[in-house]
């Protein structure tokens, strides 16, 4: 019998050398005449420990990490295949505090199962949500999602069940499910991890959505920057099709549904749902005015449910375990769990799925361990490039849609990017404007021209020229963008800019002060 090792093929683990570790393991095993079965999983999301391998032992999995290829020989010498002691031994992965503190629902299988195996998915509780949906019928499935309180995880937090109800009620011969897997926000990687680590859960979520609203075709729109996720999804779709989970008359239910991956071409704005639909139609990714709602007139003018990866991937467990179990977790109007992504200058970066309500300070200091550089934390940007920068003074803010909004911020897709005290917040404000200028779809003037103007004004401020006048100008410009933009790219770029100015004003006046001194 050969020994079994689990090692991620997740892009994050690859970026830290997982393939070289796999090659060293295979080489060393061959040299020692040991049969080794290396299962390439997704990642658990403890990225400071990657490449992290897990050995299957009779008493469960034992983890080792972070492993460099040169250390592989010493692992064999320490009899790691039997869970032997080694300086890099981490014990049972579930007992690592970062993981132990989490409530993993959406990510229950990620890092554990073989993402290429439909059988492994089934063996770990897969397809139970679909089975329950098929037993409930479409209308009750929609109501189950409504009752769970699930809100869209792509950023806007709109109740998923309500969106489904609208699409279900629309009369049309053809309806679509579109999965928004464009994940463009800096500091976010939860969608990528699910697609690479548990792609079948996303397929199952889309199937349930299709069944619930009466759609027979799904598209998953993802980004060209995610080649590994694209490959993993395509492989899983093939496996699901040959297993009878996609195509005609799925599992003899009479329900038919098929699914296709489409790849964007480097445009952040195509994550906005209506721009995404235009891009899927083969057009420029320009934002559409609403109404009409996509749920009524979406892709090719047909009723379309468009949901984020995490929204859809959370549906199977909601159906399998019942809406109440999900709705019982959370804080205020934010129900269930949120996969929070700890990123940037942070000691313990990774994926932290927890019920809403954990505070920003707990996330950054306790769970994240402070900065990677060892310097003090100065600013944290939550919610991607359109999210506000929060100072430590706001660390008591609970992770909750309304609590962040009350402090002029947003949780967006759950990305938390930490900066130490070397950050220049005026430079960050300038970048926010520059990013908006680069990615604007061009439809509205305040966004298209205002952002370019904003870069110029920030350049003058950073050069110390007419600072008070230019600060008034940038504030005005932000007001204009906020109220005169069709979508959140132009409308929310003021969040990072104005939060930087409000909380870190010294960085904007320093150049002028120095010139005066």
């Amino acid at each position, binding site marked *: 019998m050969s020994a079994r090792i689990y090692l991620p093929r997740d892009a994050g683990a690859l970026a830290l050398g997982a393939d070289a570790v796999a090659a060293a393991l295979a080489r060393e095993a061959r040299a020692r005449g040991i049969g080794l079965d290396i299962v390439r999983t997704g990642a658990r999301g403890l990225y400071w420990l990657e490449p992290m391998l897990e050995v299957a032992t009779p008493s469960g999995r034992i983890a080792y990490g972070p492993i460099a290829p040169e250390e592989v020989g010493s692992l064999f010498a320490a009899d790691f295949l039997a869970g032997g002691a080694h300086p890099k031994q981490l014990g049972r992965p579930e007992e690592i505090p970062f993981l132990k503190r989490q409530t993993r629902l959406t990510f229950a299988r990620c890092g554990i199962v073989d993402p290429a195996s439909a059988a492994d998915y089934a063996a770990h509780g897969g397809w139970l949500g679909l089975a329950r949906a098929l037993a409930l019928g479409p209308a009750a499935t929609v109501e189950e999602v409504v009752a769970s309180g699930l809100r869209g995880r792509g950023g806007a937090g709109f109740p998923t069940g309500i969106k489904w109800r609208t699409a279900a009620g629309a009369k049309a011969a053809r309806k679509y499910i579109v999965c928004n897997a464009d994940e463009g926000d800096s*500091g976010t990687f939860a969608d990528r991890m699910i697609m690479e680590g548990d792609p079948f859960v996303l397929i199952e979520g889309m199937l349930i959505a299709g069944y619930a609203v009466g759609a027979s075709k799904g598209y998953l729109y993802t980004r060209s920057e995610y080649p590994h996720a694209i490959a993993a999804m395509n492989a899983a779709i093939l496996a699901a099709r040959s297993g009878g989970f996609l195509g005609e008359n799925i599992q003899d239910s009479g329900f038919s549904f098929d699914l296709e991956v489409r*790849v964007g071409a480097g445009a952040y704005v195509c994550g906005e749902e209506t721009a995404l639909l235009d891009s*899927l139609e*083969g*057009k*420029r*990714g320009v934002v559409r005015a609403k109404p009409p709602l996509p749920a009524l007139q979406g892709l090719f003018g047909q009723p379309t449910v468009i949901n984020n990866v995490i929204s859809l991937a959370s549906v199977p467990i909601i159906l399998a375990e019942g809406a109440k179990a999900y709705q019982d977790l959370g804080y205020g109007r934010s129900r269930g769990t949120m996969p929070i992504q700890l990123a940037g200058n942070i000691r313990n970066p990774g994926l932290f799925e927890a019920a809403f309500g954990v505070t920003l300070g707990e996330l950054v200091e306790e769970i994240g361990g402070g900065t990677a550089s060892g310097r003090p934390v100065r600013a944290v940007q939550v919610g991607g490039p359109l999210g506000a920068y929060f100072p430590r003074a706001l660390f008591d803010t609970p992770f909750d849609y309304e609590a962040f909004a009350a402090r002029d911020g947003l949780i967006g897709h759950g990305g938390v*990017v930490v900066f130490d005290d070397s950050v220049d917040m005026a430079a960050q404000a300038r970048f926010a404007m520059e990013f908006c200028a*680069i990615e604007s779809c061009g439809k509205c003037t305040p966004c298209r021209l205002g952002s370019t103007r904003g870069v110029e004004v920030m350049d003058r401020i950073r050069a110390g020229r007419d600072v008070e006048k230019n600060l008034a100008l940038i504030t005005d410009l932000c007001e204009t963008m906020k109220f005169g933009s069709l979508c959140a790219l132009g409308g929310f770029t003021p969040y990072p800019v104005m939060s930087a100015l409000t909380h870190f004003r010294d960085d904007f006046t320093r150049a002028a002060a120095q010139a005066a001194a």
Partner: protein
Amino acid sequence: MDIAMTDEHSRHAPPPPDWDAARAGALIAAESGREGGLLPALHAVQAAFGCVPEAAEPLLASAFNLSRAEVKGVIGFYHDFRRAPAGRHVLKLCRAEACQSMNGAALAADLLARLGLDWGGTTADGALTIEAVYCLGLCAMPPAALFDGAPVGRLEAGRLAALVAEARQTGPSA
């Protein structure tokens, strides 16, 4: 997404040396039956020839029943589509916030200065193109890049220099 600028760039770009209109036509035809097949067709052309040359525009226009201006507009909108091939190797360096938090901007600026390039530029020996990207989902190991499609994390100056040296020593990767 300035279309005028893209046209400016493309005006004098001849098709790549391996341009083959018949092959391009077949690739485009294979996608033209799909709903919204224009983006898949553009990706297929770029995968085969390293870019979407002007010469592809009439083929795309007739396959998708669009005007040539419409095709141009779509190509120009997306950052990914190139009008001329990149160098033999491509380094996509992340410029976004999580990578900035770990000194990514200075690292990138130094590299570009040392190579005498702007974003999107190619070294004179044709070995390496440096492209800006905005997040690779590798924000837990910043600064990050894709080197010929392979993810690289926790970049520092030494590692970048090694990647440049590798690009200059080797032929195109598969």
